[in-house]
């Protein structure tokens, strides 16, 4: 559709000659599209006139209406809506109270869970047996994994290598976690360690001392183990066994250990 706004506006504004006006009027009679364009322009002009007329006054009127609106509709609010607002406030208060209780309950549950988990962990990690096992695992792998083809005849105290035989027996018992037997063998060795009639080339005294401490711990003789560790610390033993003894004293001194045993 060809837009003929200029001509139509001139026609509406009376800016056309009489002949031009007559010509467009006759066109308008037979052309519905042109009629529609004219109607649009007329409306546009009417809207624009109204806009110009009302724009400034309307602004002032709206301010006035806002004031009355606030006054009368706020007053109306005092009935139903204020009670609704009150109800909402109460609901919020209730929900915030129940929210606080929920949080407290959740915190209590978390604390309970933490205590249970810690207890379980302590119980499993700090018993004599478990502690002894962890020290046993820290021992030289050769001690734990010895898979030799030794025959283990009864050690003979009349033979010169009696102590060395006992060491082999000790290591076997220790490897098999027979802490009772290992403890007995070590005690026998340590009793004769200064006897000159026995060979002691393969006997590592400080290692045996430490192994005995682990055995005592595994057998539940905590106090004896602690005393033995303290004794070991007083000797000229190597740094490795001093560290192990210190750790053992520290571990057996902890609350977890006391609680677990």
């Amino acid at each position, binding site marked *: 559709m060809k837009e003929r706004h*200029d001509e139509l506006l001139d026609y509406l504004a009376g*800016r056309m000659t009489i002949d031009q006006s007559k010509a467009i009027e006759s066109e308008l009679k037979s052309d519905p599209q042109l009629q529609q364009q004219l109607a649009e322009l007329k409306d*546009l002009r009417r*809207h624009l006139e109204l*806009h110009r007329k009302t724009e400034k006054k*309307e602004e002032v009127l*709206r301010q006035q209406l806002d004031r009355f609106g606030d006054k009368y509709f706020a007053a109306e609010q005092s009935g139903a*809506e204020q009670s609704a607002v009150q109800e909402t406030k109460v609901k919020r208060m209730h929900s915030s109270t129940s929210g606080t209780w929920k949080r407290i309950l959740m915190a209590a549950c978390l604390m309970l869970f933490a205590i249970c988990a810690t207890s379980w962990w302590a119980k499993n990690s700090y018993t004599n047996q478990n502690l002894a096992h962890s020290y046993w695992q820290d021992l030289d792998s050769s001690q734990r994994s010895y898979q030799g083809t030794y025959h283990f005849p009864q050690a003979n105290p009349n033979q010169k290598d009696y102590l060395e035989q006992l060491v082999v027996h000790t290591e076997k018992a220790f490897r098999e976690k027979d802490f009772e037997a290992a403890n007995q063998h070590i005690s026998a060795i340590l009793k004769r360690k200064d006897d000159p009639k026995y060979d002691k080339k393969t006997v590592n005294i400080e290692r045996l001392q430490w192994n005995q401490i682990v055995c005592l711990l595994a057998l539940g003789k905590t106090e004896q183990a602690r005393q033995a560790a303290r004794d070991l610390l007083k000797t000229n033993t190597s740094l490795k066994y001093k560290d192990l003894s210190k750790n053992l004293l520290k571990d057996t001194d902890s609350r977890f250990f006391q609680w677990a045993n």
Partner: protein
Amino acid sequence: MKSHSDQKYIEALKQQDAKLIEEIYAKYSGLIRNHVVNNSGTVSDAKDVFQEALVALYHKAEQGFVLESSFKAYFTAMCRYIWLDRIRDKKRKKEKEVSFREVTNSTDLGEVSEELISSMLKEQQFQLFREKFAELPPHCREIIGVSLLTDQHTGKAIPLKEVAEQLGREYGYVRKEKSLCIKKLIAAVREDSRYKGF
């Protein structure tokens, strides 16, 4: 045409007579609030509807509207129409599920007359025009504003040469721009979904 005694309220809006305008609020705010609140609205909605109806009445007053029935009947019907229209709009936007039948069946505010529907449609189109006019570039608003209107003193159209002089622009430029801006404004109004014919 004989005007109704309540014509004073229409004149009050035109003259911005605070006392009479407050009287309108005092008399009818409760009625409108009840209607809106009972039909899925809030007090705040009621306040907006009330104000919108008064502004529409003001526009009518400026165009020489003469009240033939009571103000209460006419005004409440206007509010009812506006609220109905808002609900329709909300339904269209699927913002709120409300019972349209419930609203249309309510007769507490009387029937909405054909004249009122037509005048409310005109009001809506006027608001749409205003909105689109405000969105035009400033030079377009200026050219359309001056070239389409009649002289406020003489009531005659202002010759385009004078418009060009007033705006300090070339005659050719004003003529060309006026045409383009009008086209732009008409297109913007037509393309809006709220457009229901000029």
